[in-house]
């Protein structure tokens, strides 16, 4: 890709290629608001390179698409739920009413759930603390610290560097090792019903 010819436009597309593009554009404009916005800009002649304008600050194209909030594919979440049910019976545990059981009975079940959850976390995630300092110790955050990694609380005033007491070390998943799923596997089945023959 790096050494491909840098001509912005290749040779003009043939008629049949254009026909295919026209049908593709029809459905893309209908189905993809972002594409439609870029298409509108192209028609107005303010065309920039078609893909993400990274460096050049583009003069805001007409009605800017709303800031994108992504919805994650739910299959990884379903997969984790299935693992927690399989190893820790977490769904069974949380769906059961605690009324009518004494603490010893709940505690016995909690042991199973605790052990199983710990196993799932241990085997599928590499969870490490965000900060290596002991909780309670004084830490200093330099200017430009990553606000996603450290949350400031309490008397949040002034400017960096900020010095405060570490209330929680934080957790970060350094690695995620979820099972790969077969094509067509229905992740919504969290635990199949069991029928003993």
């Amino acid at each position, binding site marked *: 890709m790096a050494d491909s010819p840098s001509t912005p436009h290749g040779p003009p597309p043939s008629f049949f290629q254009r026909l295919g593009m026209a049908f593709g554009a029809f459905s893309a404009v209908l189905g993809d608001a972002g594409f439609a916005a870029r298409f509108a800009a192209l028609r107005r002649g303010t065309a920039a390179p078609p893909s993400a304008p990274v460096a050049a600050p583009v003069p805001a194209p007409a009605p800017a698409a709303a800031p994108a909030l992504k919805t994650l594919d739910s299959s990884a979440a379903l*997969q984790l739920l*299935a693992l927690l049910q*399989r190893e820790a*019976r977490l769904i*069974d*545990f949380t*769906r*059961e009413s*605690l009324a009518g*059981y004494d603490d*010893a*009975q*709940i505690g*016995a*079940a909690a*042991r*199973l*759930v605790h*052990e199983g959850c710990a196993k799932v976390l241990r085997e599928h995630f590499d969870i490490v603390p965000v900060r290596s300092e002991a909780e309670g110790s004084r830490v200093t955050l330099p200017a430009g610290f990553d606000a996603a990694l450290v949350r400031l609380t309490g008397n949040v005033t002034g400017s960096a560097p900020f010095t405060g007491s570490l209330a929680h070390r934080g957790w970060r998943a350094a690695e995620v*090792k979820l*099972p*790969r*799923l*077969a*094509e*067509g*596997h229905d992740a919504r089945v969290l635990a199949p019903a*069991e029928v003993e023959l």
Partner: protein
Amino acid sequence: MTAARYAIGIDLGTTHSALSHVDLAASDDDRPVLQVLPIPQLTAPGAVENLPLLPSFLYLPHADELAPGELTLPWAEERGHVVGELARRRGATTPIRLVSSAKSWLCHSGIDRRAAVLPPDAPPEVARVSPLEASTRYLQHLRDAWDAAHPDAPFAEQDVTVTIPASFDPAARELTLEAAQAAGYPALTLLEEPQSALYSWIEASGGGWRKQVRPGDVILVVDVGGGTSDFSLIAVLEREGSLELHRVAVGEHILLGGDNMDLALAHTVARKLAANGTNLDAWQLRALTHACRGAKERLLGGSGAPAEPIVVPSRGSKLIGGAIRTELTHDEVAAVILEGFFPAVAADARPVSRVRAGLAQLGLPYAQDAAVTRHLAAFLGRQQDALRTLEGFAGRQPEGAGFLHPTALLFNGGVFKSPLLAERTLATLNAWLAAEGAGPARLLAGADLDLAVARGAAYYGRVRRGRGVRIRGGTAFAYYIAVESAMPAVPGLEPPVQALCIAPFGMEEGTDAPLPALELGLVVGEPVHFRFFASSVRRQDAVGTLLDSWSPDELQELDAISATLPPEGRSPGDLVPVRLHARVTEAGTLELEALPVSGGERWKVEFDVRGEREAASA
């Protein structure tokens, strides 16, 4: 030797298998870069995960049991069977379709190892597989996993070592080789597991091992795996200024391992529950076994707690209401595991032969005595003369010793993750040594108890290229066939039988035994069987030695061997005089051939693995 890029070591275990590898090009001499291959395997229907170990289980699902596509592996569509973690899990709830302990079946002389007999209690509609076929599928899975991860270095072009128990007899070794060939393996080498564990310890020491052992040391390797216990003795020599290692003795095949211990604990707890009126079903008993394993590891791990709670979940979705709560006490674990499996016996203790209902299941010849320490005492007692002829060891063992005195101890197998069991074994051995006025044995620390065998096997691939120290010793058995002695027949009495040595102790790989002078008669066109024996103690017998009598401890009978002479150029029924020739192949298997006294032909002599020992004639 080919230009292999990697040396691959495969631990084909009774309960778990693993693959380790070392890049032959990239390693310098004392710090080879050993890696363990994560094995992609099904862990649930439709879900594939990478795990360091491949459980040695094969599940044969019903046609309607799984949705289409749920058995897809990264390298294959449906195979119709499941290997690994999912097989183990499924098999726990549907044992009639589960093949387990295939390796123990592979060396079980009571059955035909090539016949489809597993699972032993499967209903007729299940298409059973042979122990050979099951082993092939595990090896195939490991090969596929390698090829998927290394498209640029195909498995078939690498240098492969597969480990086997030191106690495997020639037939079991050959079957392992046959399984590997069926799985598409290249020419490979077999390596004894205790040796592999020692190689791994040498590798892990990063060159420091030369400071931890000295000439005159006798290293005892105690390997207690999930299903088998295996012992070996390795002597340390100095020759021309450098240290040499010689494996001088191996133990018997003992079907006794960590799984027996977990089962024994579960039954103890189940009895306790039954006494209080709670009876567990088979599903709950398995869950209990699992819970006992965890509690045992915590109690034996030196937590100091007097008891660990045990919770057996209900099978239904009512978890809190259905769970059964009990506990496993330290005293119970001590009684069942320490006193049951590792009792502090005297050096002259020997295993007791009696049927133990708790261990006997599925027809495998489980050890009748559960005490690992008694088996160990018997091994050291039987091998007390093992060092007599070894260079530099004359006079090192005290006269009149009741057993062979080791000076160092190396553990292998997950059982010894428990410091209590390791300490008990070491203390028992040291008490035996102290009773005979010898100093205590040192513990060789730092072994990776789960993966040492696979790692050592990969390391061995380098050793075979002359990089690093090699353990010598050759075969740990001398082999004999039974011949009828030339005595006048006495009516009503079977003719006495003599044992003819055809392969001496200590044959190295790739060597031939000389031809015995004694000729045997083979009938053309008919299979002729010979009773076949091995001795782990008769080190002096040369080829041609005839034994008139022997004690049961000296010679063990193995599967018979048989030869069939093709009738080409002869009339069927003719008696042809032949001599038996033995060689140890490069792979490490014993090969027997019948050589007619006249003519240059050779016929292969086969090991009978059809479980017909009783029917074989002398």
